């Protein structure tokens, strides 16, 4: 264990930040890029996870387990979100026979 611990110290925290920002931006790009709602939901998951990664990294570098607890909470929220989101997808598919986000254009009312 200690070896891993010591080894990870070779990698500066900044790298984790950059990695997580990269993932987050990719997720964001995906949300803007795709029309399929399922894909968009997946990109959202990606963004969640980039945040999770950063939290875990900070937690490790600060030796504070709170960060990991937060990751845990985010997972809870993500699970809930996916459950609701996917049920919406199911309902949408059932009603409009498609999962194209462009068909959800009633939000102007």
């Amino acid at each position, binding site marked *: 264990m200690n070896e891993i611990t010591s080894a990870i110290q070779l990698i500066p925290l900044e790298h984790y930040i950059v990695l997580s920002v990269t993932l987050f931006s990719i997720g964001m790009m995906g949300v803007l890029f795709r029309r399929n709602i399922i894909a968009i939901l997946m990109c959202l*998951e990606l963004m969640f996870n980039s945040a999770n990664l950063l939290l875990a990294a900070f937690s490790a570098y600060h030796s504070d387990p709170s960060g990991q607890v937060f990751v845990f909470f985010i997972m809870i929220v993500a699970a809930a979100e996916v459950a609701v989101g996917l049920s919406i997808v199911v309902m949408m598919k059932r009603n409009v026979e498609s999962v194209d986000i462009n068909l959800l254009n009633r939000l102007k009312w």
Partner: protein
Amino acid sequence: MPEAGWDYAKQTTNQKLNQVIMVFLFYFLSAIMVISALLVVFSKSPINNVIYLIICFIAMAGHYILLNAQFLAVVHIIVYTGAIMVLFLFVIMLLNLNKAIIPQKSAVTRIMAVVTGGIFFLVLIAATRQTFVINPRYAFTSEIGLVANVGKTLFHEFLLPFEISSVLFISAMVGAVMFGKRDHAVGDD
């Protein structure tokens, strides 16, 4: 780059090898994550998307292990890869979405999306650059990621949010069931 209190020269060869492997692992996993994430965005078939995302998540679990967050790594694999992604797969297969190819957005929009993502990346990097300079003094212990420690924190400091999250789950469940019910009157709109 090496921090105070840790002298690279004093390590044994075995240790050094380990460390090289670790560093290599970090970059390797990162590369896998970025590439698979990009594939999630750019591949057209939902099934493929799911597969790439699973790859991405497994790589992330590797990162957690590197960060000494063993508990998280396990939970991550179980919750995300094991539950959430399977849920995705189920839905895709249930609704037979793979065949219904949804046309892509117009070229302009897609370029705009990529540009926006790029700008967002740059801006975030610019924003976090300030933290690079601060360079805090890290205090590593290997124990914090253990179930015992995480559990202690969770049930001591975060007991109330934890309990409340159960309410969140309940409501999410109820919501999902409500949405999913076939005869639910959604209205004609």
